[in-house]
């Protein structure tokens, strides 16, 4: 039946309800586009036959093929747009550099969309005033406590906190430190917030 491949694309995304990005299904899209081409060409010839030979009995078939074409268009754009929404979410979750495993699941045009989106977002955030603007991809949770428990993931040497004390950040050591001092190091992957 027509449009089955297109609906399969939708089902594929529907199955991954947690926002994961499956590999770009180039094959299925190509098949749907080929089906659209075939339907369109059949309609072209039927339309001219209906006009020149007055075969109005062809009209229901023509209308039916047109509906299938519209449905295919709608399914493909829904599939592509839903993927864009998942890709957009990746910028907010992973930052501006995507893990390679995820990049492999994106087609070239999606990577381009991601790059443009990143740029747009960066321009907007810089415009928010002050010297560097405001990075609104940080501060995702309300600040709960002044001090947090952190574990050191790599050797970072000496680290001075506000009251003058010097801490030695050795790999696997754990410390109870002021949160604002750690944020930068957490983002860089030097420290890890331990939530018990």
């Amino acid at each position, binding site marked *: 039946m027509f449009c089955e491949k297109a609906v399969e694309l939708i089902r594929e995304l529907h199955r991954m309800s947690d926002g994961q990005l499956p590999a770009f299904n180039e094959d299925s*899209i190509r098949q749907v*586009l080929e089906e*659209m*081409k075939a339907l*369109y060409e059949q309609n072209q010839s039927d339309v001219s036959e209906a006009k020149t030979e007055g075969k109005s009995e062809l009209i229901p078939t023509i209308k039916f093929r047109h509906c299938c*074409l*519209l449905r295919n*268009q709608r399914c*493909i*754009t829904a599939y*592509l*747009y839903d993927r*864009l929404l998942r890709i*957009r979410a990746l910028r907010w979750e992973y930052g501006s550099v995507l893990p390679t495993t995820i990049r492999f699941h994106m*087609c070239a*045009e*999606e990577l*381009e*969309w991601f790059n*443009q*989106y990143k740029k*747009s*977002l960066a*321009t*907007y955030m810089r*415009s*928010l*005033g*002050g010297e560097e603007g*405001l*990075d*609104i991809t*940080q*501060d*995702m*949770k*309300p*600040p709960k406590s*002044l001090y947090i428990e952190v574990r050191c993931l790599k050797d970072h040497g000496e680290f001075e906190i*506000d*009251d*003058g004390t010097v801490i030695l950040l050795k790999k696997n050591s754990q410390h109870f430190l*002021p*949160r*604002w001092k750690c944020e930068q190091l957490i983002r860089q992957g030097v420290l890890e917030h331990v939530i018990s």
Partner: protein
Amino acid sequence: ESVAHFDRAVLLFQAWLNEKFSPELLENKSELVECVMEQLMHMEENLQRVRKGDLKASVHRMEIDRIRFVLSSYLRSRLQKIEKFFPHVLEKEKSRADGDPSFLSPEEFAFAKEYLANTEVYLKAVALRHMPPNLQSIDMLKAVPEPCLDSFVFLRVKERQENILVEPETDEQREYVVDLEEGSQHLMRYRTIAPLVASGAVQLI
């Protein structure tokens, strides 16, 4: 100066809640955002001058982090709605009369236009240009859903309102009017009280 700071933080807090709970994008508050950014900068500067280890520093630090969180969350709320409803947001801005207040800041407007262009270019490149000639474009206004103005919201009344017209929920009901007393709290359809949110007469909670 600290009184002005307090007022701005309160205004930011109110704008944040309204934007969070409103189904549609509200009027932009660029001036408030600018003031709060300035305030944060001053607070950071003051913090550098405080003697290290002073307990006051921790409290100031917490305050800065809280305000920065509310500001970021406010701006994120707006950006999310701009992205979600981008064709409608742009259409609204385009058809706005010269004197009417803008819903988007100039930077948000630029962001929205870029988002539209980026998405259109993408769809064309990856699929639409391979489709039959009469199907190579999509009407974004039809394809992207509009915000649901009939969603229910919680609100607290700041200024007494009389004769608010409430639409019937079922066929048996008829429309009726309510008076909203100052300080009272209600659960109503956003559409009914939308102008009151804009005017500040009610606060979404």
